[in-house]
């Protein structure tokens, strides 16, 4: 019985594996496939560049591609999403700080850089560059206020290549129709009155949904700019949170009054670049905050709004306040485990100092397409002038947590004001919320410090 079964199996196997039954075309196809596979495996590989730049910015990758190749080692660029860049860099710095996988130069934006600069002494994963900047004489070409964002404990960890002072851009035509000129306002209180007149005018003409100013209701990006004007940092240089600063509650009360008071004059713009531009085009919001990086998106408003926009500096709260603030920036740095620091530095210098004059340069390239919107106003000149005045502060993970608490306070304050809570009561409520937030941040700061020697 077993022998018969064995014979049957063997016959089946012979039938299945008989080459005679395979069509010649299939054999040829198989051989062709095999040959192609072998050829692909044996082909000479592309030469890996000796220096690599990591960036999440298509503009930076383009700048790299169009720059003349640096003398010496060959260089390449890896363009990836900012999240991917953050994760890959952090993982390598944590797990293999001297890995050859590390980039030689890295392009980081403010928010991304926060976690890379948050480490104990000697443990920051980027190389200090102040000595190289001084020795090369390039330090004088960097705007003094721009280095602050990348400086920690006296060491400079990045060369700033972008810095975005903030202005207000508004619909000149709509304000003119309402008979008011926002540029005449030198203080926020004056601007609030003008915005109120603007909204009242459009309400009388059956446009109650027209608001004067863009203000966020669930994020702290705009109030942070106002606080910067008043020189209130969410976290000070010593790493102490500052939400207990006495200047914050009245400012937050003022902010919620604009947003949700009995005569609201501000509203958040829609999410997404195309949409906030549409808000401006339709006149739903007449005045928006414009750091340089926002301007290229305004190209969508060309030619409809040609000559209808104007730009102004930020009004002040008090005479000593700054007339601008910083919203975003970027730098080039060198990971501390880079295999050839000299070559990395040369590549960095070539990318950062390729033009003439000071860096970060005014965003002229991004303004090229939108100049017609502002008629005869020289917006590049406005940015250049303001960028000499700004003082960029370092962003830290604790600062991000503080900004989130502030955002929560805005949301609660706006809801409370809309529900009819008086200004005085609201001021007290805000103080209580911020005190709780401050306690939480102090616990977090102590916890972070506890993990370090």
């Amino acid at each position: 019985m077993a022998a018969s079964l064995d014979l049957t199996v063997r016959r089946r196997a012979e039938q299945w594996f008989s080459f005679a039954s395979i069509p010649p075309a299939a054999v040829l196809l198989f051989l062709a496939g095999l040959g192609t596979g072998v050829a692909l495996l044996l082909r000479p590989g592309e030469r890996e560049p000796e220096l690599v730049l990591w960036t999440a910015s298509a503009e930076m990758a383009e700048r790299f591609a169009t720059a003349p190749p640096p003398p010496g080692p060959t260089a390449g660029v890896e363009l990836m999403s900012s999240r991917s860049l953050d994760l890959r860099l952090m993982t390598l710095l944590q797990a293999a700080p001297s890995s050859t996988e590390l980039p030689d130069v890295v392009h980081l934006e403010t928010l991304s850089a926060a976690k890379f600069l948050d480490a104990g002494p000697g443990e920051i994963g980027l190389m200090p560059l102040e000595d190289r900047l001084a020795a090369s004489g390039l330090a004088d070409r960097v705007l003094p206020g721009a280095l602050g964002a990348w400086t920690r404990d006296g060491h400079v960890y990045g060369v700033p290549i972008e810095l975005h002072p903030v202005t207000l851009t508004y619909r000149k035509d709509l304000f003119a129709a309402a008979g008011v000129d926002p540029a005449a306002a030198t203080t926020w209180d004056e601007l609030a009155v003008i915005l109120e007149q603007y909204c009242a005018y459009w309400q009388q003409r059956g446009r109650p949904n027209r608001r004067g100013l863009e203000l966020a209701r669930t994020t702290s990006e705009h109030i942070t700019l106002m606080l910067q004007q008043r020189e209130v940092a969410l976290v000070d240089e010593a790493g102490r949170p500052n939400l207990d600063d006495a200047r914050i509650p009245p400012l937050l009360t003022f902010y919620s009054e604009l947003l949700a008071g009995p005569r609201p004059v501000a509203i958040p713009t829609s999410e997404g670049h195309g949409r906030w531009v549409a808000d401006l085009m339709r006149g739903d919001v007449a005045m928006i905050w414009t750091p340089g990086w926002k301007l290229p998106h305004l190209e969508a408003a060309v030619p409809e709004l040609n000559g209808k926009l104007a730009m102004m500096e930020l009004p002040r709260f008090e005479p000593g306040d700054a007339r601008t603030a910083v919203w975003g920036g970027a730098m080039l740095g060198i990971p501390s485990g880079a295999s050839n620091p000299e070559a990395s530095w040369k590549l960095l210098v070539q990318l950062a100092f390729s033009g003439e004059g000071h860096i970060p340069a005014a965003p002229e390239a991004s303004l090229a397409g939108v100049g017609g919107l502002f008629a005869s106003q020289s917006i590049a000149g406005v940015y250049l002038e303001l960028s000499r005045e700004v003082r960029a502060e370092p962003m830290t993970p604790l600062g991000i947590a503080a900004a989130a608490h502030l955002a929560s306070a805005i949301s609660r304050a706006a809801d409370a004001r809309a529900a009819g809570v008086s200004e005085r009561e609201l001021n007290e409520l805000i103080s209580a919320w911020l005190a709780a937030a401050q306690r939480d941040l102090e616990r977090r700061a102590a916890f972070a410090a506890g993990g370090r020697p």
Partner: protein
Amino acid sequence: MSRKPPSRELLKPRRGTGVRDRWAYVFLFPFIAGMALFFAWPLARSGWMSLQRGAGTDEARFAGLANYSFAARDPLLWGSLLNTLAFAALFLVVQIPASLGLALLLNDRRTRGLRELRFIFFSTHLVGVVFAAVLFSDMLSGRHSLMSRLLLHAGLIDIPLDLLNREAWVMPLMLACAWYLSVGFGMIYCLAALQHVDRQLYDAALMDGAGAWGRLFHVTIPQIRPTLSFLAIAGAIWALQVFELPYVLLDGPGPNYRGLTAVMYLFAIGFERGDLGYSAAIGWIFTVVVVLITLAMIRMLGVGREEVES
């Protein structure tokens, strides 16, 4: 002729060793190796990480239970857990009855267009979570949303709706999106279970004078209890792990952290702030919470008791 039951000796697990058993381990090796490499090792590593401090590029240092001790006093962690539990509870309270209701409707032969309705209700499950979140955001909130435009056009509102920026609306919108995604899925399971209920039981119940509600509570639900239990447990685990939905819908934790869920908080701490040690500790705390809830549900729903009883 009745079949002779197998002898007890045959049912006993064999202790045999020898060539065949060794081959079994050879064939099992790839799976065991995969499990060890991609599940057990990362799990053990995350357990070890949860005992270390060192955010960002700091060198990780052993810190004992410091992360867990901080977690015990972290209001954002407990707030996010509370949000998650509320979301999961409210999600299940509606999802299961709604799924059963739709299944009962489609199981009734008098309902017209059964195939079309079945497709319409189930098709929402084919839409990905991220896409559904974008869809809801576009439909319900913001100046450009469909709802705002319709209401403005009809003259019912003066100011566009801004629901996602309102604390009170965050949870209802998250839940609506979750129900939209999952009710059709639950309906298919319930429908399959309903079609296996013995018709004779309904006849018997009718003869005993049971009305529609009586048949539902005394025949239908007991008969499809295993399916409902499965839906409840699977739904609870999904809802407790919710992340992409609020992350995309609210583009962050939402007003006053109302949309912050436990997994979202874990992600923010680990990958946005770079504190992998604390993030791992949050992961373990959350795992314990999910396991406890699942075990409680298994006990409460009597999962597995049916087999023992039968």
